[in-house]
């Protein structure tokens, strides 16, 4: 039960291999495992890791693209918002200007209209007045003539003379009124 080997076991004790086959078996088995692990196991794992990392990277890229898109949309939206605000401001400004113009025009028109109405009223008044004066002149002349004829007792039938007298009288009156 004490196998013969290359080195006397007495000198090395348990540090001497019992059989050379132990060393060879250790080497051969390890080489076999190494070969299989190198050819099949590690490539399978590494391929899966690569796929995983590429998938994650792809996900990150997709997220980045989405983010960029969102940012672009936001920028566009803000652009639109700004332009809309600008437009609104412009419209408001326009409206203000327009309203001022309209107001001015209306005021203008109203002034003109009022002037016109005033003018017309004045003219009508003047016409009425002159008509009234004319009528009054006739009436007052008649009345005064009659009154005078009654007072004087003389019939002033001669119309033409009477009218002249009256006219003269009235002209004197008017002159007196104008002088006053």
């Amino acid at each position, binding site marked *: 039960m004490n196998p013969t080997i290359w080195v006397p076991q007495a000198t090395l004790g348990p540090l001497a291999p019992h059989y050379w086959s132990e060393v060879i078996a250790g080497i051969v*088995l*390890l080489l076999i495992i190494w070969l299989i692990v190198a050819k099949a196991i590690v490539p399978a794992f590494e391929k899966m890791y690569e796929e995983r990392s590429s998938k994650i990277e792809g996900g990150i890229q997709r997220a980045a693209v989405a983010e960029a898109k969102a940012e672009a949309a936001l920028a566009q939206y803000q652009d639109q918002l700004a332009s809309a605000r600008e437009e609104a401001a412009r419209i408001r400004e326009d409206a203000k200007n327009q309203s001022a113009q309209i107001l001015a025009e209306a005021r203008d028109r109203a002034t003109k209209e009022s002037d016109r109405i005033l003018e017309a009223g004045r003219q009508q008044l003047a016409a009425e007045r002159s008509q009234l004066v004319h009528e009054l002149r006739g009436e007052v002349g008649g009345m005064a003539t009659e009154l005078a004829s009654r007072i004087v007792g003389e019939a002033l039938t001669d119309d033409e003379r009477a009218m002249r007298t009256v006219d003269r009288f009235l002209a004197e009156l008017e002159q007196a009124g104008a002088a006053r």
Partner: protein
Amino acid sequence: MTIGLVPLEGGGYTPPGTHDFEWGSVWPGVLPDWVNKPLLQAVIGALLVILFWYLGSRKLKVQPGRAQFFFEYVYEFVRNGIARDILHSEYRRFLPYLLALFSFLLVNNWFGEFFFFMYPTFSNVGYAYGLALVSWCVYVGAGFHKWGPGFLKKALIPEGVPGYLLPLVVPLEFLATFITRPITLALRLFANLFAGHLVVLVFVVGGGFLLTYADNLFYNVAGGVSFLFSIIILMLELFIGALQAYIFTVLTAQYVSTSIAEAH
């Protein structure tokens, strides 16, 4: 009255020793002597490792299931925890060897604590020599592959050593790099497992002897305690087996790293 160790020294008890690590043929008369239990264990261990990784690398998915998560954990322990940590950008080339080495070592070391085997393969020093020899070839080969013959100069002449010290330094460096490294690799592994198994044997065999000793209650109780303690030692051996597998792999990676490093 001499109670003490007398019964152990008397007849019927043979203390565990190196003879417990010598195995005959598993099938005496048919198979030669060297086809023994450690050899069968080494072969079964190798098959288990291959089976383990075959199962683990089948149908790998980008989103791992529970089983794949476990295999990835073991794989990444070697890949990230040992290979990439030590070899950095060049880890990929040496990863297969480190993975094979670590799993082969771990399975065979744990054979020491598992029923049916109950014997760590690497407590037979020959297997440890074999593995150390392969590791030696790997790190020396990596150096020559990267630097060509200049590897010898890089390995033997450290930078900044004055010329008059070279006659002293070169032989020392040669011894350290090419001789003691593989020997210490092998002996560290072997000695830890050998000693651990021997301790377990002492507690189990001695405990068994005491437990069945006739007409002495104290011996029987002590034997029971010894049995219980052997369980604790077995737990410790589980840890040591994993630790030695880890150390062997880490040191191999470290040697490869110094071989291919730009500057020493």
